[in-house]
């Protein structure tokens, strides 16, 4: 079993007292996850990196407002979600927030070159994710790739758990139809 010498909550407490080193250590634990979350909802590496930097800066400025350090992850992703959607609104100010489409122009590029899976499968997955609505895609990213629980997703997306489940299950049905159209095996 692996124990972390210092927990995130300890780093958060030290960072709120002004320890930049502690905050940098906290960033090093979360930057890859936050970057990949932003990459999958924006579909653009440059935007994802810029947004990730903004997210960690904003989180540092507001760290004292975090009541429960144990809820750091959903709190951080809530900031990331808001930053991403602020960017979408700036780019398409005339579009209503509910119908904003992230720039998914580079989603195909995000296919991992070092993946152990066949490249065709990765491309098919990227293509299937692109066809989802932004809300559905974000629900899949938060649940499947980031591993959040439903109540945490509801906090991040600022919507009821029922809405989260509806988006996720609709997305899974669409993905299943495209990616797992298997014939019954051993089923009479």
């Amino acid at each position, binding site marked *: 079993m692996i124990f972390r010498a210092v927990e995130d909550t300890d780093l958060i407490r030290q960072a709120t007292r002004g320890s*930049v*080193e502690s*905050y*940098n250590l906290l*960033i*090093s634990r979360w*930057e*890859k*996850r936050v*970057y*990949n979350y932003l*990459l999958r909802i924006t579909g653009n*590496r440059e935007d994802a*990196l810029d947004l*990730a*930097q903004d997210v*960690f*800066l904003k989180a*540092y400025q507001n760290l004292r407002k975090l009541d429960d350090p144990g809820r750091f992850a959903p709190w951080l992703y809530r900031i990331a979600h808001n930053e991403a959607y602020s960017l979408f609104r700036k780019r398409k100010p005339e579009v209503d927030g509910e119908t904003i489409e992230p720039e998914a122009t580079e989603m195909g590029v*995000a*296919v*991992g070159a*070092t*993946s152990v*899976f*066949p490249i065709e*499968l*990765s491309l*098919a*997955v*990227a293509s299937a*994710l692109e066809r989802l609505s932004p809300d559905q895609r974000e629900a*899949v990213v938060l*649940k*499947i*790739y980031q591993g959040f*629980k*439903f109540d945490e997703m509801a906090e991040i997306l600022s919507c009821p758990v029922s809405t989260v489940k509806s988006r996720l*299950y609709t997305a*899974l049905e669409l*993905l*299943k139809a495209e*990616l*797992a159209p*298997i014939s*019954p*095996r*051993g*089923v*009479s």
Partner: protein
Amino acid sequence: MSCSPFDLRDYYLKELTDPQQRQMESHMQDCPACRLELEQLRLTQAALFSLRDEEIPQRIAFVSDPVFEPSAARRWWNAFWGSPGHLGFASAAMLSAALLATAFTRMGGPAAGGLSSAQIDSRIQHAVAASEARQTVRTTQLVHELAQKADSEHQLRLVAESEMEYARKREYAREVKDGEWITPASN
């Protein structure tokens, strides 16, 4: 319609309680349709995992710039006032200093450079007399002004009454001249 006691997707995503999970596991052993559904979910997730996380192209870190950091004296000052114990000690020290200063002042008396009681009484009497004199002059002025004002108003009233009497008599003379005099009806 699903035959499982709970949502199969909740079970797969481990969003059920432990007893519910166990109930679903038991159900899965006897239900081929649900097993197939579960297998499809596993395949879907496996396919999604073919998209691997990328390394961040540039590490994020913040630099603590000494320019924006408070000085050592400032940090001590902030730490001092940020501590309730220190704050209590400072309050007690200030209170003690105030008490000592008060006691020392009282002990000094006239020898310490103050005035004697007779001098203080004399100055008070002088100040009171000056104030009363100023008040008397001011009262006299006010009475004089009020008398002048009353006289002026009386004069104005006499002039106004005289004017009204003149106007009334002239109107009466005009009516008599024009033959428009009407004898008041007698009952």
